[in-house]
Each structure stands twice: as C-alpha cells, then as structure tokens.
C-alpha cells in the first residue's frame, strides 16, 4: 500500500500553446487550437464543452496517445511523449480485458512492472477491498454491471500509483443513480490518494460537483473559452446541488456551453444544406430561432 498512498502531491500537468490537427482527406482537420491548461498537484479539474470540440483529443494528448501538432505537454516538468503507467486512464468505453478476472485486470499494471505474483495479488485484493469489490475478484468482466466495470477500470488505473488520473466521460454510459454513486467513489479515492485528476465530461452538474476548477471549451476547433473556479467546500454532499451557489455556477456554465453548442450545431445544419427551410440558420439567427 505504501506506494499508492502518496506522501506529497505530485502530478503537475501543463499544456502550453497546444494545437492538434488530424489528417483528413480534404487536408488537415483542426481539432484543438491555441490551448493552455494546467492541473496543479492534487487538483481535480474538469473539461466540459460541446460534442466534437476536441475534449478527447486534448485528453489523449496528455495521455501520450496523440502528439501535439504544436505546443508541449508536460507532467512534473517532463515532456510527455508516449503512454506510460505514470498517467492512468479510464475510458468511456468499457476497457477491461474480458479474458482476465477482475483481480487479474487490477493486477495488470503491477505485472507489467514486474512485481511478483503473490505481492501483486495482495495489492490487488487490498485495492478491490477499498472499492467494495472484493466479492467479485474472481468474476470475469462480462458478468459485471456497467457501474462495476467502470469501478474496476478506475481501480485498475490507480493500482500502479500514477501521478495523474485521466478520465474521458467515464460515467457517460451509466444511469443517473449509478452515476451519483460513482462520483462519490471517485471523490473518495481522489482525496485518499491525493493525485491530480483531469476529467472530461459533458455533464455540467457532474463537473461542478466533482471539480476544483472547470475548463469550458469552444466549439471546434476547440480552445479554452473560460476557466471557472468552483469554490464549493469539501466534502461535498448531494444536497449542495440545490444550493444557490451551485445553481449560479450551473447557470453560468450552462449559458457558456449553450452558446458553443449552438455554434457547433449551426455549422452542422448548414452543412446539411437545410437553408431551404426558409429559416435563417446562419450563426446568430439560429440562436434566436431556438
């Protein structure tokens, strides 16, 4: 356990002058442009933004799966150039290895590090215990509910004691009640392990409830539109979501995102050649129509 209970917060993420474009048939597609973000050690930061604005792109670059076209990504001053066990990741799609039991999945990172079997078994059991999953250690993922799969996914990503945890809409596929429970579990683990978290979501309530700070992105090509500190005290209770402070934050973020979503959709509707509907769908007028 000693290696996962960090002594001093680590995991300072810094993304500077970042842009990334994909190669498309009609030339490069600019996904993210001119972006600066940072996550302080031990901080919980969320990224929200309209669909397709480049949230996953940004996160995948921090994970090391994508190379920035311009700019630089560093963690604790070291340049990121490829995936590593220092940066744990939880994906939106369930990504447990179906051929491994729950415990073997959690052990995977430790195995890759060369930890002897008995030792990593013990470590995996301890972690599964913390997440309330010890009863399922011998199950194959197929037999688990969606919420449990993601819980195992989080535990697996944390097992190697990463400096930062990256999550890409991890609860997107879960029902509302399970979501709330998962948010609580994630908060608990984060506070216990004192690591930095970068969390992508399109759920505004989720972002506010979990985060110390929220970045709101613009429509594609994505960049940072606003940075909103969340001064709500911790530990946070579900009841806080009714407080005026929470609701004010929510209103603010909501209107930011709405603006961007409409911009994004306006583009799409124009792309589909729907001007024939006799509605002025260009940019601003769409905002008024809706």
């Amino acid at each position, binding site marked *: 356990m000693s290696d996962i209970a960090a002594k001093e917060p680590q995991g300072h993420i810094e993304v500077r002058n970042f842009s990334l474009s994909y190669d498309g048939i009609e030339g490069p597609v600019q996904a993210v442009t001119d972006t600066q973000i940072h996550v302080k050690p031990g901080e919980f930061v969320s990224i929200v933004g309209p669909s397709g604005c480049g949230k996953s792109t940004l996160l995948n670059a921090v*994970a*090391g*799966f994508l190379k920035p076209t311009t700019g630089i990504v560093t963690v604790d001053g070291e340049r990121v150039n490829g*995936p*590593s*066990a220092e*940066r*744990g*990741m939880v*994906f939106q*799609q369930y*990504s*447990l*290895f*179906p*051929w*491994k*039991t729950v415990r073997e999945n959690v052990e*995977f*990172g430790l195995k*890759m*590090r060369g930890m002897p079997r008995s030792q990593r078994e013990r470590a995996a059991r301890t972690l599964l215990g913390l997440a309330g999953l010890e009863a399922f250690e011998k199950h*194959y993922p*197929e037999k688990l509910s969606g919420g449990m799969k993601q819980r195992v996914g989080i535990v*697996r*990503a944390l097992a*190697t004691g990463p400096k930062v945890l990256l999550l890409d809409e991890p609860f997107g596929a879960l029902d509302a009640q399970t979501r709330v429970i998962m948010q609580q579990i994630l908060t608990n683990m984060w506070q216990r392990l004192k690591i930095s978290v970068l969390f992508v979501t399109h759920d505004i309530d989720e972002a506010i409830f979990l985060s110390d700070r929220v970045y709101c992105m613009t429509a594609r090509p994505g960049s940072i539109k606003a940075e909103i500190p969340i001064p709500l005290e911790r530990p946070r209770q579900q009841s806080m979501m009714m407080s005026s402070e929470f609701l004010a934050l929510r209103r603010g973020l909501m209107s930011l995102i709405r603006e961007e979503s409409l911009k994004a959709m306006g583009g799409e509707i124009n792309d589909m050649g729907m001007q024939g509907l006799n509605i002025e769908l260009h940019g601003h007028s769409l905002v008024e129509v809706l």
Partner: protein
Amino acid sequence: MPPSATPPSFGTLALRWYRLNQGRLRATAIGIAALIAFLLVWHLLTTYRVVFFVRFTNVPSPLAVYASFTKAMHDPKFLMHILLSCRRIFIGFSLAAIIGVPLGLIMGRFKLVHEIIFPVAEVLRPIPAIAWVPMAIMLWPTNEQSIVFITFLGSFFPILVNTLHGMSLVDPVLVRAAQCLGARERSIFREVYFPASLPHIFTGLTVGMGVAWVSLIAAEMISGQYGIGYFTWEAYSLVQYADIALGMIAIGVLGLGSSLLIRGAGQLVMPWRAK
C-alpha cells in the same frame, strides 16, 4: 441463507433439476428420436429396395452395415486404416496450426509482413486442396508425405484467415488501456492481441479441421494405399457395399470426434467464454 424449516425433499430437488435442464433434455430426446427415425427409414428403403429416382437396390441395410462393423472391429487392417488416417490428420493439422496461427498473428501486427504474404495467400487460397494432388505427388518423394501435405494445405488457409480476422478485430481501446498501464510491445502482443484473437483462432481451427478431413479423404481416394478414405473407395471396387457405408460412418464419427476435441480445447483455453 434463509432459515428454512426443512431441507428440500428429493422430489422437489428432482423437479427443480428437471425444470433447469428442461431445454437440454428436450433437445436430447428429440435428437435421439430423429436418429432412430433415420435408421428406420434407411432400413425400410433398403429392405424393400425402393427405386424412386434414386435406386436403393444395392444400398446396404443398417443391419448389414452393423454386421460388417462387428467384423471390422476384429480386423487389424480396418483399425490400421483408421489409425493411419488419424495420424495424417494429426500431422497435417498440427503443422497447419503451428505455422498458420503465429503467421496470422505476425501478419496482423506487422504491416510489411502482411503486405508481402497476403497477396500470395489470396492467390493460393481459392485452389481446393484436392486440386493440389498431382502437384503434391510431384513435389513429395513419398505418397504418405503428399497426402499429409494435402491435409496441411486444406486446414492451413482457414486457420490463417481466421487468425488474421481475429487480429483485425482487436479493440484498439484495449491496446490503449494496456499501454497506459505500462505494457510494452511484447506484453501487448501476449496479453492483448493473442487472447483477444483466440475466439477467432478457434473458429479457424474448427473450420480447418473440417477441411482437413475433406482433403484427406479425397487424397486417400485418389492416391492412397491406406487410410479410411482408401478403405471406402476400395470397398466400392471390391463390391463390398456394406463396407462403403461403414467407411462413410467411420469418417463421420472421426470428423465429429476431432471437432469435439477442438471445442473442448477451446473451452479449456478460454474459460472467460464459458457459459
């Protein structure tokens, strides 16, 4: 466990077992009934020597086949035919699996290998193994080797193609998950690509085993001196009609047995897919 008053009686247990297995019991019962009906129809068609488009005049009856079966069981030559066929399958199929699976895995992982080998494989693949018989006889010094070669060819392509297919379907998110848990190329191959492809590899092995038998029997009939295919063909030449059916049934049973073996192996190797 709830504090139940009495343990369930034997009767209730039996009833519960019956309910749980009702579907399987039903399928077994119907299956047995269908087999009996098949034998009965066969019996009637042959005893009355029915001629109705097809001629059953010379077709042996089930009883005649059973008689030649009991005789064959005491005949070391018949057992030798079977043993030889099994040996050819074993060698040809094993070689195909030992070469086909790793080759498919490597082709799936390394583009260059794929680009080199795939076109050649695509050209050779549609040629039925039987069409290889003359070439095989020229290529290999002994008859035995050419028959094994035909068997190998028959099973090789289904195994290769299915392994490749399995590799192409590996979920990239699993590869990414492994990468950010610290896995390097070798571990990713062993821990992700290989197990993820196993279901398709086993599909390939099952199909390959079927084609191996088809190719073997054809090769034995054309160029063999021993083997169950040769036995069946010889029976026709010698006007031993009951032995024809016996040979056919033996081939069927052997084919079924070998595919059951593969299925069993698959369940052992892939416990996560057990029902």
